[in-house]
C-alpha cells in the first residue's frame, strides 16, 4: 500500500450503484473517500458537483460494493512459495475484488507460534496489496494433539483459529480447545471431515466413483464430524464455524443447531454451490478439492442453505497447487484449487440464476465474514475503511486459468463462461487493481 501523501487524498466515485449488505442499501449514488476512509456516500452527495481536489471515478452505473472478505485462503508463505506467495496471492485477490484475505495456518512451519503470526502480518504489509490477516493453528503443528497458545496468538493478531484443511480427530482435544477458547471469546473454524471415514478416498462416494474405480469419500465423513462438534459446542458454549461444508446433511445439521440458538455458523466455497462430482469426469485433477465435489442433490441443498441463511459466508478455499501436484493420476494428485479470482463471478451466478439477491450474495462475501471474524471493512459507511470493489455484474467472459495472477493455474472453473467481473479494487482508498 502506498505511503501517505502530505495532503488529504480524495476520490469521488460518481454514478454508481451503491450496494451495502450491512445496511441493505441498493441505490444509485456516489461515494467519497478521503485517504483510507469512506468520508461520505449516498444518492445526492455530488449533486452540487464533486470536490475540486478529488480524483473522479465515473462508475457508469456499475456496482460499487465493499471489497470482498475471504476467510479461507492458503497463500503458500512460508514454505510453499513455489505455489503462491503473499505478493502473488494478494494480487490474485485484488484481481477478484477481494480486499481482505485471512490466511490458513497450514504453512511450513505451521502458524502455531506468535513469531509466525507476526511474520504474516509483517509480510502482508510489506508485500501484499490487500489486507492480510493470519488465522492461527488450534493444535501445534496441526497434529491434533496439543493446544496452541490461543490467548497470546490472539493478542498477537490471529483473527481466528483453525487447523486449516485438517480436522481435529481427538474429541477431547477439540473439546478442551473449544472450552479454552471461551475464556477469550475466540472463534474456532473447523474443517469437518473425519479422516477415518475419508480413508483413502479421493472423490465423492457414489456411482461415478464406482464407475471410475476411484476410492470414495463417504458423505458421512463430514456430517459425523460436524455433529460431534455441535455436541461439543452445546457443552462448552464456544463460538464455532464449520469452515466449508459440502453435503445436504451438513446443511440440515447446521440449520437445526441454529434453531437451537447455538453459536454455530458455516461457510461454503463456490465449488460446492456451482459444481457437482460430474466435473471429475474423466479424471480431471483440477476438480479434486477438499471437501470433494458432491452429488447434484447435495449441491442443490447447499444453494437452499445459502438462500435461507443457514450458510453464513462464502469463502474461496484458495489452495493453489503447482503443476507437479496436479499432473498425476487422480488418486495421487493434490487437493485444492485457485479460488480468489473466481469468487465474485461464480458468486454472481447465484444472482443471475435468481437464487440470491445481489445484496444477499454480497452479504456472504462482505459484511457476514467481517462480522464473524471481527474484521474492519465489509461495509459501506461513513468512517469505514475505503476497501471497495467496482464490478460489472453483466460482463460476459470466459475464465482463463492461464491468465490468473496467482502463481498457480489450477481451477475447476477453467474455460467456464461467466458473467460479471471486478473492474477496480480499492484498498484503503488506493486502487490496487484495474481491469482493462
Amino acid at each position, binding site marked *: 500500500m502506498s505511503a501517505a501523501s502530505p495532503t488529504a487524498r480524495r476520490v469521488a466515485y460518481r454514478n454508481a450503484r451503491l450496494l451495502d449488505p450491512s445496511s441493505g442499501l441498493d441505490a444509485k449514488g456516489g461515494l467519497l473517500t478521503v485517504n483510507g476512509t469512506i468520508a461520505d456516500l449516498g444518492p445526492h452527495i455530488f449533486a452540487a458537483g464533486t470536490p475540486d481536489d478529488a480524483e473522479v471515478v465515473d462508475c457508469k452505473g456499475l456496482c460499487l460494493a465493499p471489497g470482498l472478505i475471504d476467510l479461507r485462503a492458503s497463500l503458500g508463505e512460508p514454505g510453499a512459495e513455489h505455489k503462491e506467495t503473499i505478493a502473488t496471492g494478494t494480487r490474485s485477490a485484488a484481481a477478484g475484488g477481494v480486499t481482505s484475505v485471512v490466511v490458513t495456518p497450514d504453512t511450513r512451519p505451521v502458524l502455531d507460534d506468535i513469531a509466525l503470526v507476526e511474520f504474516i502480518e509483517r509480510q502482508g504489509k510489506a508485500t501484499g496489496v490487500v489486507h492480510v490477516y493470519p488465522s492461527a493453528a488450534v*493444535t*501445534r503443528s496441526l497434529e491434533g*494433539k*496439543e*493446544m*496452541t*497458545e*490461543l*490467548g*497470546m496468538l490472539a493478542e498477537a493478531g490471529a483473527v481466528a483459529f483453525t487447523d486449516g484443511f485438517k480436522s481435529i480427530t481427538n474429541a477431547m482435544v477439540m473439546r*478442551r480447545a473449544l*472450552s*479454552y477458547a*471461551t*475464556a477469550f471469546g475466540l472463534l474456532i473454524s473447523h474443517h469437518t471431515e473425519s479422516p477415518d471415514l475419508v480413508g483413502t478416498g479421493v472423490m465423492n462416494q457414489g456411482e461415478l466413483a464406482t464407475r471410475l474405480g476411484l476410492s470414495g469419500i463417504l458423505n458421512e465423513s463430514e456430517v459425523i464430524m460436524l455433529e460431534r462438534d455441535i455436541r461439543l459446542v452445546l457443552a*462448552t458454549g464456544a463460538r464455532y464455524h464449520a469452515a466449508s461444508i459440502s453435503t445436504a446433511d451438513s446443511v440440515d445439521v447446521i440449520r437445526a443447531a441454529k434453531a437451537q440458538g447455538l453459536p454455530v455458523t458455516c461457510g461454503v466455497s463456490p465449488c460446492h454451490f456451482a459444481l457437482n462430482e460430474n466435473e471429475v469426469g474423466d479424471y480431471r485433477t483440477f476438480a479434486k478439492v477438499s471437501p470433494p465435489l458432491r452429488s447434484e442433490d447435495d449441491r442443490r441443498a447447499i444453494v437452499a442453505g445459502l438462500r435461507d441463511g443457514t450458510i453464513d459466508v462464502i469463502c474461496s478455499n484458495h489452495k493453489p497447487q503447482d503443476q507437479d501436484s496436479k499432473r498425476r493420476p487422480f488418486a495421487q494428485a493434490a487437493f485444492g484449487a485457485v479460488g480468489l479470482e473466481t469468487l465474485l463471478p461464480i458468486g454472481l451466478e447465484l444472482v443471475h440464476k435468481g437464487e440470491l439477491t445481489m445484496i444477499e450474495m454480497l452479504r456472504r462475501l462482505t459484511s457476514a465474514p467481517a462480522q464473524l471474524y471481527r474484521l474492519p471493512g465489509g461495509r459501506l459507511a461513513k468512517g469505514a475503511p475505503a476497501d471497495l470493489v467496482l464490478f460489472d455484474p453483466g460482463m460476459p467472459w470466459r475464465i482463463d486459468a492461464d491468465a490468473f495472477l496467482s502463481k498457480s493455474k489450477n481451477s475447476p472453473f477453467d474455460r467456464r463462461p461467466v458473467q460479471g467481473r471486478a473492474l477496480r479494487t480499492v484498498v484503503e482508498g488506493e486502487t490496487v487493481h484495474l481491469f482493462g
Partner: protein
Amino acid sequence: MNVTRTPAFRHRHLLDIDGLSAAEIGALLDLADFYVDLGRRADKKINRLRGRTLVNLFFESSTRTRTSFELAGKRLGADVINMSVEGSSIKKGETLIDTAMTLNAMQPDVMVVRHSDSGAVELLSQKVDGAVINAGDGSHAHPTQALLDAVTIRRRGKRLSGLVVAICGDILHSRVARSNIMLLTTMGAVVRVVAPPTLLPTAVERLGVEVHHDMRKGLKDVDIVMMLRLQLERMHGAFVPSIREYFHFYGLDREKLSLAKEDALIMHPGPMNRGVEIDSEVADDINRSVIREQVEIGVGVRMACLDALVNHTLEIPVEKAA
C-alpha cells in the same frame, strides 16, 4: 470469632470439611490458635497424646504435610511412625485394605493418610478402629490445609465472614480448592474461582462460588488471593497451552495483584512453581505473602485436629507447665 463453644468433638475421623458445622470449625480454629502460640514457645510440648500411637501413611509423596503431622504428633507426646510407599509392602502389590488391616492390627490411635485416589482415605477409614485424618485424597479433600489457611487469615486480623477470597489456578485437580471452598463458604466468605475453563470442574458454580475466566476481573477488590500449584504435566497443550501463556493470563504478578485490595494477602499451599502460577517478587513480598506463615500454622492446626479427634473435645487445654 463469635461462635458458641462446642466442647465435645464427636467425629471419629476427619475426612473432609463437609461434616463440620460453622461452630465446630470456629472452635477448631480457636484450638489451633492455642497450639500455634504454643509452638512459638521454647518448650513446645504438651502431653495431650502421651502413650498414643500415630501412623503417617503416605501413598503419595509429601514433605511438608508429613513432617507437619509428625511434628504435631511428637509435640503432643505421641509415638509417631512414618510409612511411605517407598520400600513398603504396597510396592509389593498389597491392596489398600490389606495394608490398612495389617497396620490396624498394631492398634494405632490415629492414622494420617494421603492417597492419590479420591475416596481412598474414606475407604480405609471404614476398615480401622482408630481415628483417620485425611491428609489429601486425589482431587477430593485436604481438610487440614483448609483449616490452616483459615487460621492464617484470622491471625492476620481478618474475619472470615464477608471476606472475599479468590482461589486461582488448577481448580479441576485441586483438593485444596475443594476443601477451601467448603470451609470458606460455610464460614460466610464469598469465594471466587479464577481459571481457564479447561481447569474448572463441571458445575463448579453449584458449590456456591463465583466463576471468573478473566483474572483481572476475578481479583478485583479481593481480600485474599489463593494460588494453586499447576502440575507440570498439565502445562503443555492438554489443559493449558504453555507455561508462558498460563503465566501471562493466570500467573500472579504485581500488575494483576494491584487489582486486589491494597492489603490483600497472598496464599499458596506449596510447593510453588515460581514463574508458572506465581511471580517470585510477589511470592517473597513480606508484606503480602503469608506463604511461609501457612507452613508454621500448619503444625498448630494438625495438633488441634489430633487433640480433638483423640480426646473428643475442642476445649482449649489448661496447662501450667507441659
